[in-house]
């Protein structure tokens, strides 16, 4: 079976004036369908560059990147846009929802750029389906400022899912959330993963990374650790434990 992500000796070099910055110095990485990978690393380790390339927002300086069997090295800007639209769902740290725009309209957004065009009625139906999947089926007409942070991130996940992508790409998805909501979001990720969605997530919190099945750690532009997560956290269990702890100090009823 074709792997979803296949990076072969991927290197990325930026030129800042006269100085060349080697952001990624040769990474080989293969992610098969159905995996849940957490990418970790300090700032400057090259993990953002890696994510940008995996997300088809950037192209390798050398080496090859095959997304679902397609080599993106030769694709033009608009072809990359189409590829992102069809194969990748993005979830950002800051949610990045359009303000003063309803949740369902936010979820419909990727379908607006789908080629060939999707009929308006199908767009609405699919948006509602995606919102239901993240538990917000009743909140379609709420605008982002009427939703909590966790709910906003769920809308963003629904938006990422609406075009039925091959890969869900999350950049610090819990960075702006409290610990309970973080666990809830990880619960959604684990559910999606169980249904077969391939997920790659960047995080700098080890606690969050433990919800993934596989952990990739980068340092100085290279992969230094690539292993299965031992004692993977299960969202339901973690949530129950958090409930118990909070009850003990009367934080929760």
């Amino acid at each position, binding site marked *: 079976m074709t792997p979803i992500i296949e990076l072969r000796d991927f290197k990325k070099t930026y030129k800042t004036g006269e100085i060349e910055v080697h952001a990624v110095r040769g990474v080989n990485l293969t992610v098969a369908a159905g995996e849940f990978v957490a990418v970790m690393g300090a700032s400057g380790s090259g993990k953002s560059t890696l994510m*940008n390339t995996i*997300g088809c*927002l*950037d192209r390798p300086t050398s080496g090859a990147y095959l997304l679902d069997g397609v080599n993106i090295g030769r694709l033009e*800007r*608009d072809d990359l*846009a*189409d590829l*992102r*639209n*069809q194969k990748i769902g*993005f979830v*950002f740290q800051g949610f*990045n929802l*359009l303000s*003063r*725009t309803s949740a369902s309209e936010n979820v419909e*957004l*990727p379908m*607006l*750029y*789908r080629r060939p*065009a999707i009929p308006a009625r199908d767009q609405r139906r699919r948006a509602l389906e995606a919102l239901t999947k993240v538990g917000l089926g009743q909140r379609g007409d709420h605008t982002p400022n009427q939703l909590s942070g966790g709910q906003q991130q769920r809308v963003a996940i629904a*938006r990422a899912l609406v*075009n039925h992508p091959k890969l869900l790409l999350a950049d610090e998805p819990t960075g702006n959330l409290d610990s309970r909501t973080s666990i809830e979001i990880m619960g959604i990720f684990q559910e999606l993963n169980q249904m077969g969605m391939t997920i790659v997530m960047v995080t700098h919190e080890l606690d969050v990374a433990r919800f993934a099945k596989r952990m990739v750690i980068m340092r100085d532009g290279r992969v230094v650790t690539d292993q299965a997560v031992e004692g993977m956290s299960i969202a339901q269990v973690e949530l129950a434990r958090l409930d118990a702890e909070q009850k003990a100090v009367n934080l929760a009823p």
Partner: protein
Amino acid sequence: MIIFASIRLALRALRRNLLRTLLTMLGIIIGVAAVISVVSIGNGAKKQVEAQIATLGQNVILVLSGNVTRGGFSMGFGTAGTLTQPDLEAIRKEVEGVVGASPEVRANSQLAYGNQNANVQVSGVSADYLDIRAWPLKSGDNFTEQDVRGATKVAIIGQTTRKTLFGDGDAVGQTIRIKNAPFVIVGELAPKGMNMMGSDQDDIVLVPFSSALKRLAGGTSFRSISVQAADAKLLPGVQHDIDDLLRQRHKIQEGRDPDFLIRTQQEISNLATSTSRVLTVLLGSVAGVSLVVGGIGIMNIMLVSVTERTREIGVRLAIGARTRDIMMQFLFEAIALSVIGGVIGIGLGAWVSGQLSGVMGSPTVVAANSILIAFGSSALIGIVFGYFPALKAARLDPIEALRFE
């Protein structure tokens, strides 16, 4: 992304910041309204002048006699009487396409009837005059060729003069004294109103030109001859033939300035409307400048909007918007701003010109083509001034845009 979706997207974005949208539109609204009302005033003035020119008659050519030079100064055409009765006869008989010709010998004279008297312009004309000027009689008859040949003392009276001398009484058949010579009134003219200089055309008495020359003005020459052609298409030929004929008769060599001047009605009309046209163009271009300023306002706000929405653009790019999609989104926003502003401006301009027409007491005409031009130019302004901000948005790098704070 289909165009319909782009328009919907643009309108939604504009509604999101209604006050800013309205203020940005204001530039275009004022510009378009100014252009529409200035042009409508110009059109109204032009129409008025044209209506007045039309009272001169149909397909008329005016031949003016040459100029007198006194002490090195030209006194202007029509000051010297270089046109004679034989010239008139020659034009009538030898130039093809001429249906009538009449001189006009003017003499301000004292009129008297009973104990009433008035100082009125008496015009000596031929029997063709009424046809040339398309001036019908209210009652009575025109004088005849015989009257002209015999210098008979007959007269046709204008409405204003009739009122002065006769009040409500009947004029036809009465005898008035012009410079003490008795003239019998044979006809009464229908009212014609004011001419383009604003003087009353009905305060007039028409007599045969021969009688006018003999008894009122003296001399034997005319300052002008009006010639009527059978058809508008014949005008250039007739004009040319009269020129040839008079050069020949006045023995003027090829290449020398003639001692007469030929003007068609169109030329007179152009002369009369040129002032108002220059004013219209001048004011219109000032108004046009305000349109451009409005366009710059749109560009300014669009640039601000692009910067403000950098993250939104980043998200759109990340989830698969092509360069063209972003370009269209912002271009349509600019076009929607200017076109909606343009439509409001057209309405405002029409209203303002209606009000001005009331205030100034002269008509204003909001022409369909000026509405179309205003609409088209506001759309064009949207495209021109929206293009650069849209391009700036479309060329953003998705990574940079997503990172933008």
